């Protein structure tokens, strides 16, 4: 445009100059003037065009300006939004939810407590999990609230009940008082003292029924029999018992409406927990102490389990202060296990209990194992009979003891007797092991004048070592009654001869006697397998029965002396006819051999002042 204008101007200028030249020259300029005027038209046209263009340019500029304004506005908006979001973020960061103060349980626990809530654990964010937990918590709280209100109403009802009962009892009082007054002469006549109060501490009434029966019986026995030395007490806190009773009631009221729904929903409880919960003993238990204060005391802890409907007993030993190391305390468990034959406590003796346990997904074995692991002891039949719980033993015999007084008394007497036997046995073993006995002066020493052997060793050995001995005795297999054994090895020496004795003490002692196996080492090894004299000796030792003992004699010592003197007799009667005899006859016996079996005079007979060893 500019170029066009410029050329036009130049043309115009040229035209003007032409005109001027013509003028100056005095030539006619009209022609030139017309041409020049025509040029103005072109100029005007160009001018118009320029103007047009300017307008178009302005319009365009305006349009662009509008665009710029719009984007600017957008930018502003965005900036504002950014700042707003930033503010929001800060606010979010500063936000504090009230749920942080809540103590939430783990997912699994909720699942356990609210089985109805669906459990979808797959890839939930932690927040959602948290929300889920909160949701659970809410439900739980609602449930608890419901229970709370139910408890409140039941409490009200109980209070009401209490009140009405109390009123009824109070109404009895005058009648009772008159009765008491009326029977006073009778009491006097029968010499019954009314003053003895049956004081039972408050806690007793919270005992579960079987233990209550047992406790009352024990109390009455304690009063009635002076010869039984035992005490019984209730251990545990009243409040706990109350608590459990309430809990049980609560469970009853809350669980029962939902029973149907529960049955349809499969129950998946973790085993450990359920066992622990289900097999919790009653918070109160009875502690029985047998034995006088100051001597060795036997403590029996009797617990009751609601789930398996039976009581268990756990024994404990309290050694008296001056007889400290009692050595083997296993015997206590042996004692309880073998108190009655075939009553080892390895099953729950309650009829039909397996089916009931099946409802709560348990087995009887599991329960027994659990009881054992927790040191709650075993559910013996005899214990149930003391608590008047009907039992079915391993051979499917039903028994429901009704004569509790007699039965309980018998059982206690039996425990005390067995316990005494074991104490004496362990004292004997201790005496032998530590050699703090004087063989010569022991009263079981039948023939003190002739004691020429010495006991040089008495040690405990393993069951395997014992069984490495060969003897017919071990092949005589009595039916297995769950008996276990403690084994010992004793060595008796006289001169160059040595006798090894292997002694096996059964866990049902004193029902069964300790068993001796003898090996004599002298001119070769003589055992009951290759020498009938040794076999007879073994028989003589093992045949010692409790009823043959005289008062105050101890069985193991008596067996030991039988063995020692048999060994003496064996040595004194054995021997070559040519070479010099190592052992001379010292014992009074009439003949060294008798019968075709050439049996030797192992038996010591004493009649008045006449005594001798005889066949």
């Amino acid at each position, binding site marked *: 445009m500019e170029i066009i204008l410029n050329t036009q101007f130049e043309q115009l200028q040229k035209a003007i100059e032409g005109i001027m030249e013509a003028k100056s020259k005095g030539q006619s300029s009209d022609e030139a003037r017309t041409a020049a005027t025509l040029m103005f038209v072109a100029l005007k046209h160009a001018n118009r065009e320029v103007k047009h263009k300017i307008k178009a340019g302005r319009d365009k500029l305006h349009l662009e300006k509008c665009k710029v304004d719009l984007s600017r506005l957008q930018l502003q908006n965005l900036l504002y939004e950014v700042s707003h979001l930033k503010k929001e973020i800060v606010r979010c960061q500063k936000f504090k939810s009230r749920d942080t103060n809540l103590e939430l349980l783990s997912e699994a626990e909720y699942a356990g407590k609210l089985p109805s809530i669906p459990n979808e654990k797959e890839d939930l964010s932690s927040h959602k999990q948290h929300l889920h937990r909160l949701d659970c918590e809410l439900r739980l709280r609602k449930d608890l609230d419901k229970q709370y209100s139910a408890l409140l109403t039941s409490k009200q009802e109980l209070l009401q009940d209490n009140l009405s009962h109390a009123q009824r009892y109070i109404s009895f009082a005058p009648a009772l008082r008159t009765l008491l007054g009326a029977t006073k002469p009778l009491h006097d006549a029968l010499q019954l003292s009314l003053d003895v109060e049956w004081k039972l501490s408050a806690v007793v009434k919270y005992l579960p029924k079987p233990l209550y029966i047992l406790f009352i019986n024990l109390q009455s026995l304690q009063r009635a029999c002076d010869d039984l030395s035992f005490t019984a007490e209730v251990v545990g806190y009243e409040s706990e018992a109350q608590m459990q009773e309430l809990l049980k009631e609560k469970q009853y009221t809350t669980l029962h409406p939902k029973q149907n729904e529960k049955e349809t929903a499969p129950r998946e409880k973790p085993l450990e927990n359920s066992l622990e919960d289900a097999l919790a003993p009653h918070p109160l238990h009875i502690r029985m102490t047998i034995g006088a204060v100051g*001597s*060795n005391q036997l403590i029996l802890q009797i617990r009751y389990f609601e789930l398996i409907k039976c009581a268990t007993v756990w024994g404990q030993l309290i050694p*008296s202060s*001056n*007889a400290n190391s009692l050595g083997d305390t296993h015997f206590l468990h042996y004692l309880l296990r073998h108190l009655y*034959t075939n009553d080892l406590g390895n099953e729950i003796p309650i009829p039909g209990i397996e089916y009931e346990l099946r409802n709560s997904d348990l087995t009887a074995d599991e329960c027994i194992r659990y009881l054992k692991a927790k040191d709650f002891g075993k559910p013996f039949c005899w214990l149930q009979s003391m608590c008047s719980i009907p039992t079915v033993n391993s051979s499917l015999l039903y028994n429901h003891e009704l004569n509790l007084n007699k039965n309980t008394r018998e059982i206690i007497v039996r425990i005390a*007797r067995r316990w*005494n*036997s074991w*104490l*004496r046995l362990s*004292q004997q073993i201790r005496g032998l092991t530590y050699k703090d006995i004087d063989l010569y002066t022991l009263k079981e020493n039948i023939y003190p004048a002739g004691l020429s052997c010495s006991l040089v060793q008495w040690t405990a050995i393993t069951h395997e070592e014992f069984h490495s001995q060969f*003897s*017919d*005795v071990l*092949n*005589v297999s*009595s039916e297995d009654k769950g008996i276990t054994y403690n084994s010992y090895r004793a060595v008796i020496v006289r001169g160059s001869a040595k006798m090894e004795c292997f002694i096996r003490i059964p866990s049902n002692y*004193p*029902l*069964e*006697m300790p*068993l001796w196996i003898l090996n004599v080492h002298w*001119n070769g090894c003589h055992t*009951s*397998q*290759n*020498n*009938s004299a040794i*076999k*007879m000796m*073994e*028989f003589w030792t*093992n*045949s010692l*029965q*409790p*009823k043959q*003992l005289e*008062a*105050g004699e*101890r*069985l193991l010592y008596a067996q030991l002396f039988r063995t020692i003197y048999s060994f003496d007799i064996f040595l004194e009667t054995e*021997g*070559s*006819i*040519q*070479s010099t005899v190592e052992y001379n006859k010292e014992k009074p016996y*009439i*003949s060294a*051999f*008798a*019968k*075709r*079996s*050439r049996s030797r005079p192992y038996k010591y007979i004493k009649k008045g002042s006449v005594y001798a060893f*005889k066949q």
Partner: protein
Amino acid sequence: MKEKDLKRAYNNVLAQAISTSKQYLFAGNLFGDIFVLRINELEKGSEEPPGKLKIFPQGSGVDINYLAFHRDFLIVGAVGLIYGLAWNEEEESLATKRSWEVKIPMQVDAVEVPDVNSMWLNKVDNTLFAGCGDGVIYQVSLEDGRIQREYRGHTDYVHSVVGNANGQIFSGAEDGTVRVWSTKQQEQTALLEPHKNPNLLRPDWGKWIGAVAVNDDWLLCGGGPKASIYHLRSLECTRVFDFPGRVHLCDFVDDCVLIGGEHNHVQSYTLNGVLQANIPVEHTACYSAVWQTSPIKLMSIAGFSNKLHILKDFRFLDSKIDLYGNVQGEDENQDDDDELIEEPLIVEAA
């Protein structure tokens, strides 16, 4: 240990006898029990187990040292007496009441009641020869129970008595002698002392003679000394047997010699001393072997264990029969709680 188990572990069977009908075997032990085994139970074949035994207790104070069977009587040699029990074959029962009793007279200087250790029955004239714990052999008439004669000479108790049809009686005793007697002569007719023969003597085991046996020509004896054969007329020792234990049992079986005793085998030799059969036994010591050849051929060896060892061809062990634990009606008796009752323990003040 319970009494039942004790008896099983220490059952010592000293005596056996077979009934006249050859259908029943009797075994008596030192616990005073007589077991009766029906012999044809053993013939039933191996499929079904043999039936149980019957037991007839004689009381715990009665040691059954020797058994013999005559007509329908079981003759029991116990301590200080010999008695007869009637055996009822139909009912298979032994009378509980003794049909007769012969008391062994106590010697003036005796302090102990003598055992009846061995008996020999002369079925021809119904006399019984009993070798006893006082070293005397008593000749008892089974017609009237009278003691007809006493054979004195042994200085210790008699282990074994046998006789033969010629009226000769042979006895072995703890004093180490074998004496030969005649029913027609007052004094012993011969005396053997095997321990004086260095070939026979085993010094560690003593001189006693535990068992004696005879047949028409030979006398077999052994005990502490080795088992050996003597010729009856010359009384010369002609053969020694190498049985490695003490001898409590020896006999002529067919034309062999059976020797047993305190050893885990019973051995059978030919008369020439060749070992023919070596039969393992569970007895700590064997004390008795009885056998018959018809109607059922069998031998039963008993001793210090709860088992009878049955041999059908006299050379190999066929079966072992438990005594205690294999008796009719044994399981019925209950456990009696026989318990040790002791005085309370008094803890001495430290």
